[in-house]
């Protein structure tokens, strides 16, 4: 299928499929295997793993009976089982990918190929096909726009999947092709496009088009990005388009931007690998030394022993035999079961995530989902989070919040109230105050929005079929609504046009879309009133206006104006129609239709930071110039005679708005005289005709013209943050995680949002790295370094996309230094590739990274990071598909990491270390026994014991460690610093491994030495018939002791006991006794009858008791001592929890009932509890020294104390207004009397206890807002 020769120029012929044959078809593949390549590739992959190679070698050696210590079946059975399981797992995963691909590949599209229209599946689309796309459809491949339903060949697209930008972009077909807007014309089209071979540049498309292939004289027309519609792009606000496909399949821009799916290894996996290598080395040394000892014994002692029958001359390989025997004997040190155990555990962690109702989004009915089932532990190890902005931190819904008109600020009363409901503003409108009317006129006129009328019957038609959903969601926000209407239009076009094809499949498409919009519905009462504007037209029919906006800000402004009674209803090329729906003193509501002539629009650009419209009111002939823009731009263009007080007031308001994280815009106007207008238009015309420097000239004219404005006022729009984002970010910070924001949005918006969501405090020091060239960037970085050296404070960093590119390429080390010392870094105007480069930069520093995003532009970042989290958002499912975990709200990240991540890490850390521990322990016994058997490599335990030890008795009970928790969930939220336990790897590091290793060696040695001591020579005789100790007897006694020891070890390590633990741990012990008695009664077994003798022998029980006590004693003492006298933070918190629970104090209310749970959960976000050392400030000294923090905490550091006291004072000040939840703690400890008490001086969670556990500062507002914290 693939071309062998490297392509230099791609020539695409329309309606001539033969000449395009060499290009690949449009099949998108993300899967790894075919059915025929599955076995070889999978086996190859499995054997690529060091551990598997090792096991294979060991298993092969086992076949040589002369060296095999036990029956070869004991290793081959488990090994093949493990391989099979692993293969099945990857097979199923791939099957799933196949299914997803298939779904994408089998969408039906209407295309024109070889002059004939036909319907083809997405995968069969070829280069050169002319594709028909309808509104809201997703482009299946990269297209060159030929024509659209609009006469001027324009169309709107949304490129969210590609670059994450949700605003609409225009694409214009070339003049030559835009007339070809029907099937008939297009099937005659014989054009040729020459373009570059496939490349990942999404902003570059240099190519040319010839209308007639055969016409040699004809010149090429040049094509640019303006004519392209890339794969994954959605068509919007345009009925249909035709486009010629140029790149297909995985060669599209989107496909080229996709990184190949890489199998991810968790940090623990890598640590396990390292540990395996270390153990392998230890093993090697042991083999060498024991082999040497064995050979020595053989030549010194063994040869003297006639009963060993050593021949005088031996085969050459005999010197290898003893070392190899030891190799096999202690090969169990690397437990074969660990991989399978871990795989199963990991799948279960993933299921825990999928099943977690506390991450269930009840608004949209979506839960969390783990796409990658094998990396949950890494969720507990994250040090850096890279977050997208739009749709991830924010809702991507703009809302008009406040305004300041003529020096009066509206909507200030309440934090959450809208200016549109401010009675003062309504009054002003009612009184028709001229500034206010002009202000809203400006809002209504100064934009690029297209209002669209919708007949009500269409809406009803759509609604009726989905009424069920509608009734469930009474309040539907803007976005959903517009989506609904979009569908209505689809129906329209289906009815009207004859050449429409494939209604059925389109309906499917619509259904899909609708499902999707149903999923993303969001309740929002505030928006409700703005949503629908119904106008009665002449015939009395209900009509509805919706606004098609390229920017959600503009939409919010126009809607605000409309709410206030100035409704923008129609835009024709030159005429704008408004309906004034104002109160009239005499006749109540009165509708006046007014029309305006749009003379000129001075467009918005990021350089100008302003936009103006030149308007003539039809009727009065008055000409106005309305301007809106960023504050600095507007303030310097005001009339110099503007009232100082008004200026001051407005500036103040704008600043206030900005401080609240709102996006501000300033508005002004001026009247224009006819003469002035004439001069301007003349100048404009001449400038516009210039070829060189046109832009500059135009800007000069605009600048001159846009002067002397009267200030109207300012607006403040909220890019609504998602629920609980600031709290989430704060808690994540306290958990010691750095959060960066990587956004494609511009600087000012990013800054505002990052302030609003707590990423940057309002007084935080922000440095911006600027510069378009290397030297400038270098200078800038240097300057920042100097400032940092002087200031010595926490700082925040901003980098723009271009600057970032330069810095990443040539100043990487400096950039890294600057970035990792910053509290947070925000990258704006970044491309997907740059995002992933930033992630990679930190990843290369061996930091654990997590990327979270919702759009197609986050895909590369999500794939680069150790963990990618996709938010099921409004921008399609690309991010979710590429991600390892998908969640529906940003706030669930908290639970995903702090609870699931930490627990997974904690559990895996135990399971891995325990697996190695029990294996080493077993091998130590085997090795020590060889000291009494002439280092001959004998196994102390029989084959049966060896197999069941690893395969059954120690393998299964540890699965019940899967729901073990060292600290309960609520307490992790209350003490986010506990996350450092996992992110700093406190459960699994060299130190813990060392202690497990010591434990294994000690306990192994104790077991064997005591056994030998007790069963030693002449002292032992079996009380029943006087026979001496026999190998079977001592080995079975040993095995019983070993299993008891392992059972108690598990019991000792289980921190959270439930009925299941008891059942499993003690159940397995009983199971052991029963099964060994059973095995004991089968004559063919080696251990026939030995168990009866063992169990009836008091020595056996005495030995087991003795060995267990001696082996566990130091462990218990060490645990007791450390938890009592050098406790870790987790120990203390756990202790407190247990203590409070056992006294019936309120920590456990969260478990008891829903009602209490709710109250409890509301406390969590405002948990500024001082009692837990949880003062809201992350203190690295306190938190980075696990063991020692107990001692350190008691030392009073003057600085930290100061901070702490300040916070406490603030809290005390605050708490007078606060509600307090008090648990009445009666002597009978009837702790069900939970009540909410409003008191003045007791805001502690517990009354009557000065050392209270939680202090709460829960505000009344948080009761409403923070419903789903845990």
């Amino acid at each position, binding site marked *: 299928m693939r071309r062998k020769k490297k392509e230099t120029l791609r020539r695409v012929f329309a309606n001539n499929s033969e000449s395009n044959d060499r290009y690949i078809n449009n099949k998108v593949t993300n899967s790894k295997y075919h059915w025929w390549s599955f076995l070889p590739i999978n086996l190859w992959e499995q054997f690529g793993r060091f551990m598997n190679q090792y096991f294979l070698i060991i298993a092969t050696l086992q076949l040589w009976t002369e060296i095999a210590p036990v029956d070869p079946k004991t290793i081959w059975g488990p090994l093949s089982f493990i391989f099979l399981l692993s293969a099945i797992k990857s097979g199923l995963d791939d099957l799933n990918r196949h299914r997803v691909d298939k779904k994408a590949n089998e969408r039906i599209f209407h295309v024109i190929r070889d002059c004939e229209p036909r319907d083809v599946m997405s995968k069969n689309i070829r280069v050169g096909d002319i594709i028909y796309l309808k509104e809201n459809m997703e482009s299946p491949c990269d297209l060159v726009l030929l024509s659209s339903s609009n006469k001027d060949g324009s169309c709107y697209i949304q490129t969210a999947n590609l670059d994450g930008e949700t605003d609409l972009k225009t694409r214009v077909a070339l003049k030559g092709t835009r007339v070809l807007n029907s099937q008939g014309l297009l099937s005659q089209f014989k054009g040729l496009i020459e373009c570059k071979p496939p490349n990942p540049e999404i902003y570059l498309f240099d190519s040319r088009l010839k209308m007639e292939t055969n016409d040699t004289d004809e010149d090429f027309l040049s094509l640019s990005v303006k004519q392209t519609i890339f794969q994954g792009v959605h068509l919007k606000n345009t009925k249909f388009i035709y486009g010629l496909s140029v790149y297909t399949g995985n060669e599209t821009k989107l496909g080229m931007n996709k990184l190949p799916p890489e199998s991810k290894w968790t940090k623990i996996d890598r640590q396990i690998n390292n540990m395996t290598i270390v153990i392998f080395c230890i093993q090697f040394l042991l083999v060498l030394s024991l082999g040497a000892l064995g050979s020595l014994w053989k030549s010194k002692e063994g040869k003297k022993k006639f009963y060993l029958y050593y021949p005088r001359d031996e085969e050459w390989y005999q010197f290898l035999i003893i070392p190899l025997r030891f190799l096999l004997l202690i090969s169990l040190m690397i437990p074969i079961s660990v991989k399978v155990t871990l795989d199963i555990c990991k799948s279960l962690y993933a299921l825990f995530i999928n099943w977690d109702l506390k991450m269930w989004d009840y608004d949209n009915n979506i839960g969390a989902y783990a796409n990658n089932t094998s990396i949950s532990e890494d969720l507990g190890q994250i040090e850096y989070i890279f977050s997208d902005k739009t749709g991830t931190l924010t809702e991507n819904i703009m809302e008009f919040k406040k305004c300041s008109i003529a020096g009066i600020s509206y909507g200030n009363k309440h934090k959450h109230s809208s200016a549109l409901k401010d009675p003062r503003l309504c009054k002003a409108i009612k009184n028709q105050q001229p500034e206010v009317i002009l202000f809203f006129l400006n809002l209504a006129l100064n934009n690029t929005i297209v209002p669209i009328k919708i007949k009500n019957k269409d809406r009803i038609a759509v609604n009726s079929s989905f009424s069920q959903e509608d009734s469930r969601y009474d309040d539907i926000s803007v976005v959903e609504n517009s989506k609904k209407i979009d569908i209505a239009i689809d129906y329209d076009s289906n009815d009207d046009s004859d050449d429409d094809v494939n209604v059925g499949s389109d309906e499917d498409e619509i259904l899909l879309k609708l499902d999707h919009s149903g999923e993303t519905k969001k309740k929002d009462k505030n928006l409700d009133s703005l949503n629908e504007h119904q106008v009665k037209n002449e015939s009395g029919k209900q009509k509805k206006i919706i606004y098609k906006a390229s920017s959600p800000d503009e939409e919010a402004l126009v809607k605000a104006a409309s709410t206030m009674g100035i409704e923008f209803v129609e835009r024709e090329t030159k005429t704008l129609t408004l309906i004034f729906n104002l109160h009239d003193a005499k006749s109540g509501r009165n509708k006046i239709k007014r029309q305006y002539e749009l003379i000129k629009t001075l467009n918005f650009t990021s350089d100008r930071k302003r936009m103006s419209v030149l308007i003539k009111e039809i009727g009065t002939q008055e000409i106005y110039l309305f301007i809106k823009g960023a504050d600095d731009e507007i303030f310097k263009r005001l009339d110099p005679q503007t009232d100082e007080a008004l200026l001051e007031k407005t500036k103040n308001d704008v600043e206030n708005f900005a401080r609240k994280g709102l996006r501000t815009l300033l508005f002004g106007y001026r009247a224009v005289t006819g003469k002035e207008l004439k001069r301007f238009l003349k100048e404009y015309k001449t400038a516009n005709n210039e070829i060189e420097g046109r832009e500059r000239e135009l800007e000069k004219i605009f600048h001159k013209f846009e002067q002397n404005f009267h200030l109207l006022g300012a607006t403040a729009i909220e890019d609504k943050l998602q629920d609980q984002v600031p709290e989430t970010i704060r808690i994540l910070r306290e958990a010691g995680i750095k959060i960066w924001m990587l956004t494609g949005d511009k600087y000012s918006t990013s800054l505002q949002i990052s302030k609003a969501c707590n990423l940057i405090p309002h007084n935080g020091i922000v440095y911006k790295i600027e510069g378009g060239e290397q030297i400038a960037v270098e200078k800038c970085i240097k300057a920042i370094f100097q400032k940092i050296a002087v200031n010595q404070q926490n700082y925040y960093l901003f980098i723009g996309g271009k600057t970032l590119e330069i810095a990443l390429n040539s100043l990487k080390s400096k950039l890294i230094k600057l970035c990792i010392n910053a509290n947070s870094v925000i990258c704006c105007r970044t491309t997907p590739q740059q995002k992933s480069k930033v992630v990679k930069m930190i990843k290369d520093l061996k930091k654990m990274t997590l990327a979270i995003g919702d759009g197609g532009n986050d895909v590369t970042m999500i794939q680069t990071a150790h963990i990618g989290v996709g938010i099921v958002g409004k921008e399609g499912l690309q991010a979710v598909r590429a991600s390892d975990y998908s969640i529906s709200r940003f706030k669930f990240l908290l639970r995903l990491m702090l609870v699931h991540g930490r627990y997974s890490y904690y559990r895996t850390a135990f399971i891995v270390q325990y697996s190695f521990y029990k294996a080493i322990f077993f091998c130590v016994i085997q090795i020590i026994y060889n000291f009494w058997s002439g280092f*001959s490599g004998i196994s102390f335990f029989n084959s049966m014991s060896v197999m069941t030890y690893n395969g059954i008795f120690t393998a299964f009970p540890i699965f019940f460690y899967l729901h073990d928790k060292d600290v309960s969930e609520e307490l992790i939220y209350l003490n986010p610093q506990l996350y450092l336990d996992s992110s700093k790897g406190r459960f699994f590091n060299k130190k813990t491994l060392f202690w497990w290793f010591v434990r294994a060696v000690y306990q192994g040695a104790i077991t064997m030495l005591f056994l030998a001591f007790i069963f030693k020579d002449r002292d032992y005789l079996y009380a029943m018939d006087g026979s001496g100790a026999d190998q079977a007897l001592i080995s079975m006694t040993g095995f019983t002791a070993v299993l008891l020891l392992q059972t108690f070890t598990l019991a000792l390590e289980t921190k959270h006991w439930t009925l299941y633990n008891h059942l499993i741990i003690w159940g397995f012990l009983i199971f052991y006794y029963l099964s060994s008695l059973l095995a004991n009664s089968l004559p063919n077994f080696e251990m026939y009858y030995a168990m009866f003798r063992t169990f009836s022998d008091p020595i056996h029980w005495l030995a087991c008791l003795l060995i267990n006590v001696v082996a566990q004693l130091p462990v218990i003492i060490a645990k007791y001592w450390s938890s009592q006298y050098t406790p870790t933070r987790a120990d203390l918190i756990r202790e407190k929890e247990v203590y409070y629970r056992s006294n019936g104090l309120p920590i456990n209310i969260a478990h008891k009932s829903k009602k209490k749970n709710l109250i409890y959960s509301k406390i969590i976000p405002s948990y500024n509890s001082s009692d837990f050392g949880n003062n809201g400030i992350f203190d690295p000294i306190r938190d980075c020294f696990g063991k020692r923090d107990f001692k350190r905490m008691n030392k009073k550091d003057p600085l930290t104390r100061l901070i702490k006291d300040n916070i406490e004072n603030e809290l005390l000040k605050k708490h007078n207004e606060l509600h307090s939840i008090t648990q009445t703690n009666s002597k009978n400890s009837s702790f069900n009397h939970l009540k909410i008490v409003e008191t003045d001086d007791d805001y502690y969670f517990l009354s009557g206890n000065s050392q209270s556990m939680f202090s709460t500062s829960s505000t009344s507002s948080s009761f409403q807002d923070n419903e789903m914290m845990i």
Partner: protein
Amino acid sequence: MGGKNPLLTPKCVIPFCYLFSAIFLVLAITLFVSISKVDEITQRYDKDCTTKCNITIEPTKDMLAPVYFYYQLTNYHQNHRKYIKSRSDKQLRGETLSYADSSVCDPIRSYDDKESTKEVYEPCGLVAWSKFNDTFSIMEESTQKSVGFTEKGIAWESDLDEKFKNPDPLPDPDSPTTIQSNYQDEHFIVWMRVAPLPTFRKLYAILKTGKLEKNKKYTIQIENNYPVHQFEGTKSISFSTSTWIGGKNSAIGWCYLVIGLLLLALSISFTLKHLLWGRELGNSKYLSWNKN
């Protein structure tokens, strides 16, 4: 799901220590008392013995039946890998062993290394081949009368019933391929139960009724065949009575005593530490660093 989070608090650890200390000390005393009731006489005989010799023993106390009579070997590695594996349980159960299957018996496999099933040793393997072949008979010295020791019932009953069966036809005792003509010989079965450690005792005979009287001399007539000098081993004989924990196993008594005392010491020191420098449980002051 509810559950309990147990803690290692002084309240549970210290009583636990005391409890185990008490259990261990009580057990230690019981063990020592029981062990003191066991009588044992052991004597090495390989040094001064040629092919035949007599050894005399004189119990200091009456040894009541059952009295067990053992032979004891030292520096004898029955647990050596080469040795332990060199047997065929299948053959010992009385089934015919083909030459191919007899590879487990390496190096004692077939007579003259012939590759024929008929030539396979009966039974094959080092364990059977190296069977201990000294014999003992115990007599009262004064009367030269045999004491009532019996050599029946020294092997595990289960072995006699299931694991060792004579082949059909019985091996010809004169054939060079026959190592042991009667697989159900109890001395043979006892020998085939390999010992786990290089010093071991194997039961030879039991005095099921009567007693070995105090201050009476008993002679043990030994036929000394088994070579041990070349590998610096020793051979001894031993008489022992038994109690509920078996023989004179003082090792376990000492273990219990030492551990019991250790636990007691630990408990006391924990108690002191807790009383003098203990901390309040569940007190937040250890977590917040500025509260007094």
